[in-house]
C-alpha cells in the first residue's frame, strides 16, 4: 500500500481540540500559510486551514489569517508547553531567497576578501567557479595568510597588505563583505582578524565570515558567505514584516516566529538574522516533511511531483529528512550548509515497480527486502506541503569538521566535542534546553591525508521552545 500525502485542508476549519501550529511559505508572486495540529490518536499532523494570497502584501495577509485561525481554535496546550502559550509560527523563505540569488540586481553587491598564501595567477582560479556566485560579487581582494585543514599556519597574515585592502574597502564602501580564509574552519584567527579590521573600517557593513559555518572546501565556503551576506538585508526585512504581523495579531497570547532551514529544520528568527544563508534552500525540503507528516510516517521515502514532470524522491528517517550539502544554480555551486537531499526519481524506482532499488539488482535473485521503508506519493500542492513541513519543523543543527585522532579514544572525544557544539547550536536555533538529541553522526577518514585525519559530521535535533 502506498500512503498518499494529501490533506482535507481548505479555507474551512475542522473541529479540533489540540494545539495549532502555523506554517507559512513566501515565494515569488505569492504566499501560503496553513494551520496544522498533531493527530491525537496517531502520529503525524492534519491540516485545518490553508490560506493563499498574491501580491506585495501576500505574506502579511496569509500570516494574519492563519494566526487568527490558530488563536480562535480551542487549545489544550502543546505536548511540551502550557495551555494558551504563544502560537508557534514557522516561515519558509527559501523559494523567495533563491529567486533573489538568481537576480543579483535585487541585492546589494558583495565584496570578497580571501585570505590565502597567494593570490590566483590564473583568472579562472582568481574568481569563484560558479557564475551565480560570481554575479553577486563586485569587488575582490586577497590578503596573504591562511592555515591548512588542521589549523597549522601556512603564512603569516600580511598586516601591511590588510591595511591597504581595508583602505580600498573603505573607499568602495560595500554594504556586504564576505571573508573566507584558507583553513579557517580549523583555525579562524586570520579570518577573524581580517573581519574585525573590515568591521572597524565599515561599521555599517554586514560581514560574513566563513568559520561561522564550518564545512569544507574553499569554493563551498566562499559561496556560503557570499550568499549569507548578500541575503542579509532581505532576511532582516522579511523577518521585520512577519514579526510586525505577529505583534499586531497575536494579542496577549503572543506568537513565536521561527524560520525554516534548508535541511527541513527550523531556527529562531534572531539566528536567521545573523546567519541568513541557513534559511536558503528550504521550499521542497519542508514539503518532504509535510508529506511524511500528513501520511503519519516517521520513516518513509517521499515522492514529490517535479515542476517539469516526473517525481523527485527524498528520504525521511526518524521524522527528519535526509540531507546533503545545499547546491544552488546550474551548473551547481555547493554550499556548506545542509539541505534536504532530493533526487529525480527514475521510473524503475517508483512505488509498485518490482525493481525498486532497495531490492537486489538483477542477477542477484529477486525478493522483497524486509524492513524497507514505505513510499509516500505526495498529491497535495507543494506549497501546502511545505507549509505543513514548516509548521512541524524541529530546531536542528549541523556540524561538519575535520579533526586529527591518534586512537579510538581520541575519536570518541572528538565526536563528543562535536556533539556538544552541535547541541549548543541547536539550542541557539531555538531548541528547548535539554531537548536536543543526536540524530546522526558520521566519521570518515580523509583519503590521502596524514593518518588519523577524520571528517566528522553531526546532526542534532531539539524541540522548539
Amino acid at each position, binding site marked *: 500500500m502506498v500512503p498518499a500525502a494529501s490533506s482535507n485542508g481548505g479555507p474551512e476549519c475542522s473541529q479540533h481540540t489540540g494545539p495549532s501550529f502555523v506554517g507559512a511559505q513566501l515565494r515569488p508572486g505569492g504566499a501560503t500559510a496553513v494551520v496544522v495540529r498533531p493527530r491525537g490518536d496517531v502520529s503525524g499532523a492534519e491540516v485545518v486551514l490553508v490560506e493563499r494570497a498574491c501580491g506585495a502584501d501576500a505574506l502579511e495577509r496569509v500570516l494574519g489569517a492563519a494566526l487568527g485561525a490558530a488563536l480562535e481554535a480551542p487549545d489544550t496546550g502543546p505536548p511540551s508547553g502550557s495551555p494558551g502559550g504563544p502560537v508557534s509560527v514557522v516561515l519558509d523563505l527559501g523559494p523567495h531567497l533563491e529567486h533573489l540569488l538568481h537576480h543579483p540586481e535585487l541585492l546589494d553587491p558583495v565584496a570578497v576578501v580571501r585570505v590565502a598564501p597567494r593570490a590566483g595567477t590564473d583568472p579562472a*582560479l582568481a574568481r569563484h567557479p560558479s557564475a551565480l556566485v560570481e554575479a553577486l560579487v563586485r569587488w575582490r581582494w586577497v590578503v596573504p595568510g591562511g592555515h591548512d585543514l588542521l589549523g597549522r599556519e601556512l603564512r603569516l597574515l600580511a598586516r601591511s597588505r590588510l591595511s591597504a585592502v581595508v583602505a580600498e574597502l573603505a573607499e568602495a564602501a560595500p554594504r556586504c563583505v564576505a571573508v573566507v580564509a584558507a583553513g579557517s574552519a580549523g583555525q579562524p584567527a586570520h579570518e577573524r582578524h581580517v573581519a574585525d579590521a573590515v568591521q572597524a573600517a565599515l561599521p555599517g557593513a554586514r560581514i560574513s565570515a566563513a568559520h561561522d559555518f564550518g564545512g569544507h572546501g574553499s569554493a563551498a565556503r566562499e559561496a556560503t558567505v557570499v550568499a549569507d551576506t548578500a541575503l542579509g538585508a532581505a532576511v532582516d526585512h522579511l523577518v521585520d514584516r512577519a514579526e510586525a504581523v505577529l505583534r499586531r495579531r497575536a494579542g496577549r497570547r503572543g506568537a513565536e516566529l521561527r524560520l525554516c532551514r534548508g535541511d527541513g529544520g527550523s531556527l529562531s528568527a534572531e539566528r536567521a538574522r545573523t546567519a541568513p544563508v541557513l534559511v536558503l534552500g528550504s521550499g521542497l525540503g519542508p514539503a518532504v516533511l509535510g508529506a511524511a507528516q500528513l501520511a503519519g510516517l516517521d520513516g518513509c521515502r517521499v515522492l514529490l511531483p517535479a515542476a517539469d514532470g516526473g517525481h523527485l524522491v527524498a528520504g525521511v528517517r526518524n521524522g527528519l529528512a535526509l540531507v546533503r550539502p545545499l547546491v544552488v544554480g546550474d551548473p551547481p555551486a555547493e554550499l556548506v550548509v545542509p539541505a534536504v537531499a532530493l533526487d529525480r526519481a527514475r521510473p524503475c524506482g517508483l512505488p509498485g515497480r518490482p525493481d525498486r532499488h532497495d531490492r537486489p539488482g538483477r542477477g542477484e535473485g529477486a525478493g522483497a527486502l524486509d524492513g524497507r521503508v514505505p513510499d509516500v506519493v505526495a498529491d497535495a500542492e507543494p506549497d501546502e506541503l511545505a507549509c505543513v513541513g514548516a509548521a512541524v519543523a524541529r530546531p536542528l543543527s549541523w556540524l561538519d569538521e575535520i579533526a586529527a585522532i591518534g586512537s579510538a579514544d581520541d575519536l570518541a572525544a572528538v565526536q563528543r566535542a562535536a556533539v556538544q557544539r552541535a547541541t549548543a547550536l541547536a539550542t541557539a536555533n531555538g531548541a528547548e534546553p535539554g531537548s536536543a538529541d543526536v540524530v546522526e553522526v558520521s566519521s570518515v577518514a580523509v583519503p590521502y591525508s596524514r593518518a588519523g585525519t577524520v571528517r566528522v559530521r553531526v546532526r542534532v535535533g531539539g524541540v522548539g521552545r
Partner: protein
Amino acid sequence: MSDGELTAEDVPALTAGAMLYSPSLAPSSLETTVAWLTDRLERDGALRLVHPRTLAPDVGCVAVCVIGSGAALADLPPTGDEFATAVRELEQLSGRPVGAVLPLSAATVSALVPAAVASQLGVPLLDADGMGRTFALIHHTAMHLAGLPVTPLVVAGATGESISLRVPDAWRADALLRAGIDALGGWGALAAYPSTAGEVAAASLPGTVSRLVEAGRVLLGSSDPDTVVARLAAVNGCRRVGRGRIVALEHLSRPTDATIPTHPSSVVVEQVGPDARQLRLELRSEVVAVFSDGSLTAAAPDLITLLDVERGVIAPLDSLWPGDLVDVLVIPAHPVWYSAEALTMVGPASHGIPLDHPRRR
C-alpha cells in the same frame, strides 16, 4: 572527444570517469579544478591527446599528479602556476625539455590537472598513465615496475614553495616527501618520472585517459544503477559484488603503519535480498578489500568502488553515511598489477591484510 583531442565539452565525462577510478573525493571537492580545466580548454582550444608511440621516441615526458590530499586541495586551491612550476623546475633538474605530459595516476583530481598543465605548457597530453587507477605511493606505477626512476622530482605548493628530490631507492620518495607535503598545506603539484616518449610507450599503461571519458559517459548517460553496471562491464569489466545498506563506519580497524597515508577504516554493508550477506569493506585512501561473510572476495589492485543506488552516481568515500544504499562494484586492474612483484607492492598484504589475492588462490 574526437580522435586525439580533449575539449571543454569532454570535461564532465572526464571528471565522472575520474571519480569512478578513485572515489576518494566528493565532486564538490573537484569543483575548482574542473572549472579551471574547463576554462583553460575554452580559452586555449582543444588539447591534443596522443598515444606515446605517436611522438618521436626522444621527446621529453613527465608524469604529473596531485600528491597528498584532494580534500586539502579543495580547501587550499591551486593559484594556477604550481604544476607548470614543478614541470619547469624538473626540466632544469633533468636537463631535458618537456614535450608531453601524462598523468601519474589517471583518477580523481590527478586525472584533471595533467590536462590543465598540458594546456598551459602548450604540449600534448599522453593517453596513458602510470597506475590505471590510484595507488597510495608514487612509486606504485607501471613505470617503476619497468625500471624507470621516479626521481628527480619536484613538488610545488600553493604557498609558492617547492621541494626537489633525488632518491636512489624509489620507495624512499614518499617517506621523504611526507613532512614537506604537510608543510605545503596538505597537497602539492608533483612532476616526476622525467623520461622520453619511447620509455613511456614501453612502460606506461596506454589508453587510460580516453577510457575515463568513455566510462564517464556511461555514468552520465544513465542514473539507473543496473544500466550503469551493465554498460561499465563492457568498458572495463566492472561487476557488482552486492547491493546493501551501510550499517557501520569504523576507524582504526586494523593496525596502522606509517608507510601509507590515511589510517585504516572499515565500512560494513548489510546486503539486501534473500541471502543477506554482510560485506565488509576495508579502506585506506581507497577501498582495498571486500570480505563477504568473512571471505575475501576482492582486493587491491582490483578497483573497488561504491555506487549510490538511489542517485545512480559514484558514492565518494569522504561522504558516506550509515543508511546509504550502495552497490559494491569491482573493476579489474591492468594485468600488470597481478604479477607477484606487483602484488607484493600493492596487494592486500601491503595494506595489513595477510591473505593471498583471490586471483592467486
